[in-house]
């Protein structure tokens, strides 16, 4: 089994707010991240797939195909967007780093045929990242 990781970057804005909670409770829970005008990050994604090496191509999967799927399914929707307002998953869900990792997994997993998705890592900044390995 070989593991292969592809990195990608996108920039987006978001804010943390749960409409079921009071304004005070939101501010207490989320602090500065609760500013309704949003704030932004340069996110880095690391997508790790795993599989056996194809004896003909020497690949686990064609990196170009992984890049195309990642661009089409994730980056085209997330890059330079206000996540809360422009990405459907986050109409009902807070776009935390954890939830972003789950959303990226759900977008990619059904689109990968030749290799199996192993891990989605989302860096919000160089000192904070979330990992998702699928539902366990």
């Amino acid at each position, binding site marked *: 089994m070989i*593991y292969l990781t592809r990195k990608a970057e996108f920039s987006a804005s978001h804010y*943390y707010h*749960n409409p*079921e*909670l009071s304004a005070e409770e939101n501010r207490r*829970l*989320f*602090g500065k991240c609760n500013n309704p005008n949003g704030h932004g990050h340069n996110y880095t994604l690391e997508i790790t797939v795993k599989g056996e090496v194809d004896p003909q191509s020497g690949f686990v999967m064609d990196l170009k195909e992984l890049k195309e799927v990642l661009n089409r399914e994730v980056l085209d929707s997330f890059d330079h967007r206000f996540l809360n307002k422009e990405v459907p998953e986050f109409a009902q*869900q*807070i*776009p*935390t*780093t*954890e*939830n972003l*990792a*789950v959303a990226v997994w759900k977008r990619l997993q059904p689109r990968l045929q030749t290799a199996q998705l192993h*891990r989605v890592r989302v860096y919000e900044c*160089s*000192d*904070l*990242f*979330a*990992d*998702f*390995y699928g*539902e*366990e």
Partner: protein
Amino acid sequence: MRAHLTKRYHFAASHRLHNEGWSTEDNLRVYGKCNNSYGHGHNYALEVTVSGPIDARTGMICDLGELDTAVEREVLARFDHEHLNLTPAFAGSVPTSENLASTIFEILQRNFHAAHLEGVKLEETSQNSFEYAGGGEIRR
């Protein structure tokens, strides 16, 4: 829906690798430059990984502020800008990065309860790092 979250912290400290039970020659042979009696220092980077279900109310595994508070109080206050050999944690052991990583894990495990502590990774320099997960396997 279970996820992992990792936060990086930074601290600077000095140490000397020296085993009181060994001869001068043995200490020099095993530890080399790290045995210099005056000690030397590093900029350490510490990654703390926690795991748990994502709380539907907050979208988070735990309040990151609680993790920051625990790491600042229990790890950074104890070790940042200190000579590790002189801290109580290393009264009876050599402050190698292996021992520092496992010590930090055990301190956090005793003092942080907002989520499951998955493991810690300690980078002594950009060229070497040490990981400890309480003796269990480290997830890749």
